[in-house]
């Protein structure tokens, strides 16, 4: 049983969704909808009663919550049920007060053991809510910037192992243009697959490698906003036209 992303035509393309317990890298330049996609992925789980953990390295939990509220009017219900949790490695580092339910604060993105501990604490808090959950790390690029690619890679190796064992299907965002090709390849290598996004002549294109789909099906058009993400390119019988 695949894990639906909540974006209907993308799920068609992914033959139902991403594989359970997979770790997908969402890779592309800034401002092309990676964050919206990642949050919709969490929301889809919440709608099905599946807990979600959003690990934030460059956005405050309060802002992420505001975005969720704008995306789904039922979000307060998921919040009241304790389904949504945040690991916020941003607010404390810049001195923001945090008044968001279900948040674990970390004192900065360089404190990787603090980050791993906060994720472990959060998973312990939700483990009774169901056998699986969703986890998003947004973004790896901040961790790499504050540490270095090798250190972040080791962190990710541990995190993927632990979250799989905990029953999590994970997404990690990585910014194009901030890292060398060799560094990007290193992170692609550890992922179950890559969902690449890019702007192209006034349009946005998406490509899937791995993630349980055998063929590379080329690039397909999509559009996005702060609250939505939709595939607009046509495809049939599982293939992009």
């Amino acid at each position, binding site marked *: 049983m695949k894990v639906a992303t909540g974006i209907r035509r993308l799920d068609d393309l992914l033959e139902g969704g991403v594989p359970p317990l997979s770790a997908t890298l969402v890779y592309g330049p800034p401002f092309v909808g990676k964050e919206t996609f990642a949050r919709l992925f969490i929301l889809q789980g919440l709608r099905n009663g599946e807990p979600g953990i959003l690990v934030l390295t460059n956005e405050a939990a309060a802002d992420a919550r505001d975005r969720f509220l704008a995306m789904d009017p039922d979000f307060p219900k998921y919040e009241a049920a304790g389904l949504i949790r945040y690991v916020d490695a941003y607010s404390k580092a810049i001195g923001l007060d945090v008044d968001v339910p279900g948040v674990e604060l970390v004192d*900065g993105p360089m404190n990787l053991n603090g980050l791993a501990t906060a994720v*472990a604490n959060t998973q312990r808090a939700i483990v009774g809510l169901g056998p699986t959950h969703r986890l998003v790390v947004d973004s790896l690029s901040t961790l790499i910037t504050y540490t270095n690619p090798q*250190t972040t890679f080791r962190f990710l190796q541990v995190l993927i192992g632990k979250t799989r064992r905990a029953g999590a299907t994970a997404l990690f965002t990585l910014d194009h243009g901030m890292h060398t090709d060799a560094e990007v390849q290193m992170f692609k290598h550890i992922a179950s697959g890559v969902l690449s996004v890019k702007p192209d002549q006034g349009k946005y294109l998406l490509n899937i490698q791995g993630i349980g789909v055998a063929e590379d099906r080329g690039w397909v058009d999509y559009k996005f906003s702060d609250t939505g993400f939709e595939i607009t390119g046509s495809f049939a019988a599982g293939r992009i036209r």
Partner: protein
Amino acid sequence: MEREGLGIPQVDRLLSAIPLRSSVVLVNDPGVEAEPFLYQCAHHHLQQGRRVIYAVFNRSPETIVSAMEEYGFGGAAPKGELRFLDAFSALVGGGSDLPGYTLDAPTDLEALAGVLEEIADESPEAVLLLDSLSTLADHASLDAFKAHLPRIHAALKRFRLSVALFTRWPYGEEPAEMLAPFDALLTLKGVEERVMVSQYVRLERAAWAAPGRSRPLLYKALKPGGVLAYVPKVVVTGAHHAGKTTFVHALSDTAVSVNRLGTTVALDHGHLTLDGVAVDVFGTPGQSRFDPLLKTITGQALGVILVVDASRPDTFDRAREMMALTWKQGLPIIVAANKQDLPGALAPQEVARLLEVPAHVQVMGCRAQDKEGSRHVLKALLDQILLGAEAQ
């Protein structure tokens, strides 16, 4: 000879007394709480009036102060002085207003060793806390870390006491070998089922102790409260009306019971902190119709207290049955000869004789209503549990 400790009572029992100028390293698995050990150690030595140098490489000195407050280690230290070796701010282009030293090139391990030597010259009686060695390895490179460790370690040995953290990221090399120069090594690990359910600390080696590793000591890091050894289940059992519920409530900081008409029909649960140990206590029902529940209530217990009514020898057969249902050989146990205040109550030695308990089982007189007396019994059991944990 003058000795030192980390200021964490049960961990200090594991370590015995640390000779001056010793270096201790705590090697934690990722996701296991290690930093609170340093916060508590800093607090302890500040309270002793010492200077504490906290070297930090992955977050600001201000966040250390804030974290210490969260764990309950804020407030004034009348004579102590906390200084930072700030090897973080230069990486992010900031600065700290807190007193101490700044490392302008935190990735330069040669420079770090030099600064540590200077601080050791200036403050040889200071306690140095280093958070963390693995961040040094991450910043520089593992090879550079290994190359510079002998000089860094030699500088650490010049302080009154030095305690360092090392997170066991997948470096591809065994930390214990890399960290061989340290005088003592403790490991902090998680007990993982689907997720990490608990954490434990184990002494792997100490230059001043007999060779061999200790058994694991479960711990919790509480905000506030700091690092406490954790005994997740002590079972209090005994015959109907022996005083189990009274005993659990008297010794606990907080307790609840599932009662009907004054009799426990499911269990009693209490929680308390005693001598740096957090304990969860579970009381069983005493009536035989609840015997099927006992296996569930007593599963994975670390120790048993058998409460008997010392004024009612006619209940001892049932007490023996309860002991058989809840205790197995090797598990720490204490018999609490309760109701010593009642006329005709038997002395503990007589209770031991009539109950026919094995010779090594300690029988202690008590009055269950008396908090101190009940805690005295529990403390004797905890000593058995934790001394067992220290056995080589």
